[in-house]
């Protein structure tokens, strides 16, 4: 089938597990995130040009692409750092407003994040976000709810956002939980 006329049935392919690394430069206070496939990434601080990067957090995650089962169109999602469900912590945030409006019709709002710093990395295009949303809604077609995915650019002030990206933190920690 031709790509242009295909109505697309998406599936997740090229799933790769790895780590999402969050680094902070103590000179300029910029935050950078990146994906590191396979191995646990090096934890030392290092210098890159004017930046002195320190690792803030390492979490396990996956990267993946989408492909259409019918026409074979491949949508690489290298720019996707992760998804986050809006939990509504900032009434001033447009995503919060959208979430509250959508919630009534059982539409859950998720935010797609690209990698930081936003001005230096290619961010996820609106087209790719729409495809990602279509993929998850096709996968949850037996559901009575749907999801809506918006770009992280829609968040008013990231410092007031307390929701978390869907990723796995602390899986490798060997410290048993304190409570019990």
């Amino acid at each position, binding site marked *: 089938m031709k790509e242009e006329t295909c109505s697309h049935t998406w599936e997740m392919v090229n799933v790769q597990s790895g780590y999402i690394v969050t680094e902070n430069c103590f000179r300029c206070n910029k935050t950078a995130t990146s994906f590191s496939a396979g191995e646990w990434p090096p934890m030392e601080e290092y210098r890159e040009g004017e930046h002195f990067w320190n690792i803030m957090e390492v979490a396990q995650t996956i990267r993946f692409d989408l492909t259409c089962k019918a026409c074979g169109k491949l949508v690489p999602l290298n720019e996707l750092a992760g998804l986050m469900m809006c939990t509504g912590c900032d009434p001033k945030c447009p995503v919060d407003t959208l979430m509250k409006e959508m919630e009534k019709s059982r539409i859950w709002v998720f935010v797609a994040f690209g990698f930081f710093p936003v001005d230096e990395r290619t961010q996820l295009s609106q087209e790719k976000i729409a495809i990602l949303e279509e993929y998850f809604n096709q996968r949850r077609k037996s559901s009575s709810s749907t999801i809506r995915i918006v770009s992280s650019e829609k968040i008013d002030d990231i410092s007031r956002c307390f929701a978390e990206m869907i990723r796995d933190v602390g899986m490798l920690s*060997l410290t048993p939980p304190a409570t019990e």
Partner: protein
Amino acid sequence: MQEDRNHSIEIAKIKEALQADIITGNSQTGQYVTGIYASDLMSDVLAYGKSGSILITGLNSVQAAISAYMAEFKGIVFIRSKIPDQDIRKFAEEKGLFILTTDTDMYETCVKIASIEGEVSVSTAAAALTKRAENVTTYSFSIDGQDFASAGMVSTQIKTILKSIGYNPLIIRRVAISTYEAEMNVVMHAKRAKVTLKASDQEIYIIIADEGKGIADIELAMQEGYSTATEEQRAMGFGAGMGLPNIRRNSDKMNIESKVNEGTTIETMFFVK
């Protein structure tokens, strides 16, 4: 908090039930495990795991082996075809842990182990799990036309993936040969192609869809020795025929569709006996 019930299962029985590969601890298969713990959260393994147990996990990291060792487990089953790396193997060998790998997911692994002991009847488990056999893994690749330097890379990748899943070497060989032929056709004759590999318990399915000049007469192209390769390509050892007969010989099912000036799609299927 948990039901305190002791198990006693021979490692060889677990290996057999899961059709698992043994990575380390071949000499330990006659030993018994006394507990089963399924988790990806290592702090929990340490907090709740009982000594003598087997750890079922999808966490492919040396931390899994360290946790199992610290909690005095006997060994680990890595699920969903996660192949432990050198660090894990080395650690496990040093500490005397056995490691198994299986292609099933965590639920299925639990159910199969439970059925060994009769905790779940084997027929219940089998009936419940046959429906899950459709579990298909999909991979996508691309090939660029005229890129002779990377020719054969995709078939090599596919071979590696199939090996890591653990298919029989004979079926892997057939897939590798026919995919290599198809890949060379793309490099020689097409602009580019998308390759999709779908691997399941039942079959291996490969689709190679190219954009290119297409084949005007498929019947002719299917004949042994037919080739449209240039002299230069022939000099490199390619193009002694379009390879289509060889693809057909090596696959269990083959379908070819082509449109002139648009492209050719070859689908091949290999049945896992």
